């Protein structure tokens, strides 16, 4: 099994004709994701030709993509100034799942957007995230498919390329994944660690979890306490930013140590206190997972 997306996912790509949107639509189609529609306002009626010759219809609105093509999930590549509006549009059009890849959405725009999405009962992943992949089934977003393989480990991370690194480590060690989820590096995100951990907990095929956090905020700490109470499968954790200075934003809008709160040290301590094995470097993720799987 997998979480959030699978064979039944019918994806609409918002911003399909943009640089990133078109590149990754090709990649997603090549991976086998069922991309049923694209949206670019003003280009409705045209179509997008994916590699292999598949023609994907383009609409002006997500509503049309839902009505005419039965889209039930959306991925968003539109520029930051329009991305919050694109999320709200997708949620209002009735898709059940949205992955917002766009980086740089103003945070206060996201507070309202998040409220809207929550009121609509829709699951939002991101923004500023790499999306997710259920190896062998579907990928939504930008995670490179070739570094993943199907298997029993759930991966959840606040980062993009660091997620790839972790997944790469697992795959090279012959350990496959149920789903790899990047929740994003912004302060306000639609899906947090606990949401993903909870979904993994409900997935009978996920037998171990890798959780990759970073400095800033308390999401990892809360997730650790939740893990202790709710999960009985092994969880391995890694925190990026052990050498980050306080008060400076490390790329991600959310990766900032405020005052004395949100350090890597603190997070690793809370992981350990709650029974989560802490990896000191990405390569150290493998052996506790292999052990945990009874390897």
């Amino acid at each position, binding site marked *: 099994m997998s979480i959030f997306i699978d064979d039944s996912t019918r994806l609409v790509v918002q911003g399909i004709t943009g640089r990133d949107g078109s590149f990754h639509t090709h990649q997603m189609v090549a991976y086998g994701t069922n991309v049923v529609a694209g949206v670019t306002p003003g280009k409705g009626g045209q179509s997008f030709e994916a590699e292999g010759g598949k023609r994907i219809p383009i609409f002006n609105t997500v509503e049309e993509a839902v009505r005419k093509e039965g889209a039930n999930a959306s991925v968003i590549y539109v520029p930051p100034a329009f991305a919050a509006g694109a999320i709200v549009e997708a949620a209002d059009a009735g898709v059940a799942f949205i992955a917002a890849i766009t980086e740089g959405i103003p945070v206060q725009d996201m*507070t309202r957007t998040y409220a809207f999405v929550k009121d609509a009962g829709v699951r939002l992943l991101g923004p500023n995230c790499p999306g997710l992949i259920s190896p062998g089934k579907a990928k939504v977003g930008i995670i490179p498919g070739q570094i993943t393989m199907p298997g029993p480990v759930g991966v959840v991370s606040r980062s993009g390329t660091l997620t790839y690194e972790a997944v790469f480590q697992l795959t090279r060690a012959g350990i496959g994944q149920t789903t790899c989820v990047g929740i994003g590096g912004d302060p306000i995100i639609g899906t947090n660690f606990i949401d993903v951990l909870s979904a993994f907990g409900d997935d009978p095929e996920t037998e171990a979890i890798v959780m990759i956090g970073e400095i800033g905020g308390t999401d990892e700490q809360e997730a650790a306490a939740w893990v202790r109470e709710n999960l009985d499968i092994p969880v391995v954790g890694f925190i990026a930013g052990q050498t980050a200075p306080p008060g400076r934003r490390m790329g991600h809008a959310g990766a900032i140590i405020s005052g004395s709160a949100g350090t890597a040290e603190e997070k690793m301590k809370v992981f350990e206190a709650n029974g989560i094995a802490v990896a000191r470097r990405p390569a150290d993720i493998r052996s506790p997972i292999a052990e945990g799987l009874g390897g």
Partner: protein
Amino acid sequence: MDIHEYQAKELFRNAGIPVPPGEVATTPEEAGEIAGRLGGTVVVKAQVHAGGRGKAGGVKLAASAAEAQEHASRILGMEIKGLTVEKVLVTPAEDIASEAYVGIVIDRATQAALFMVSPEGGIDIEEVASTNPDAIRKLRVDPRYGLLPHQAYLLGSFLYPDVKLARQAAKVMEQLYDAFTTNHCSMAEINPLIVTPEGELKAIDAKVSIDDSALFQLPEVATFRDLEAEPESETQAREAGLSFVKLDGNVGCCVNGAGLAMATMDLVKYYGGDPANFLDIGGSSNPDKVVSALKIITDDPNVKAILFNIFGGITRCDDVANGIVEATKRIDIRPPIVIRLTGTNEEEALEILKEAGFSAYTSMDEVVEKAVELAASA
């Protein structure tokens, strides 16, 4: 983006918050003139992006224009937490009956703006939070409704039992929330909010951070950026679209993705080295960005080795390889470069690098170990 007190006060003033008058000086003479114009006792305040200015001697009372000029001459040029004071704010000294704290931040846990107010003002709110948490009242603002009038009053009445003051304070809360949303602040603070002996509220100090992601919508606020308050390398990096933080080590790092960049720095430390910087070249990289990145790293005289760690996803490895090759043609790169590339278009990249005489690793541990070793032996 942090802005200076005098800039924050301008935003507050625009929102109607009672802020005492004041002007900025860059020379002692100017400071003296301003003090003369204002008359009476003034305060000369260092304008730097750092807390603890008072303790560092950056805030001084002056009873006359001459004294203000004298203080300014000592404060201008002073270093506070590694930052040089280039400007002072000269503002009238106020009589203070009581001091309170009022702040708003974007709270990640509740996904909304969060007010924090305390009748214990003028001191560090984190300290109050740990020593006397009951002296702080927090209030989440539902983004769907904004700050509601009764909520503003509840905050005001937590600061002042007196109804008249509580109502004045409620108005300040609404004005501060307005400034906070209009200017896309990630943090906005009045500390202290004072009551004068005449029973008037005034915002005596102001601290504001602006959400960088919103600056494109805020052209006026964007001009508040003080280029002198940050290392030149960071200015260059920002202009090149790179995410960069200068550090003190000797291993220059060039990575795609913020998480991987941090993990790379951590791994440098793990192998006994010291990172010279955080640098994320971003997702949709192009060769020019790589050239800029290498230039910025090379400009740092501390750097003894340069480490590339690229995991291709959106980033295409061949773009990065082309950038490295291009950079070596355009600029003189002193320190040795070690490269790790994997992911999208990895083969093409390795071909490009090979032709230019570079070899590349595929393991992150290997490349970091090598870079640390090179830096140590340089």
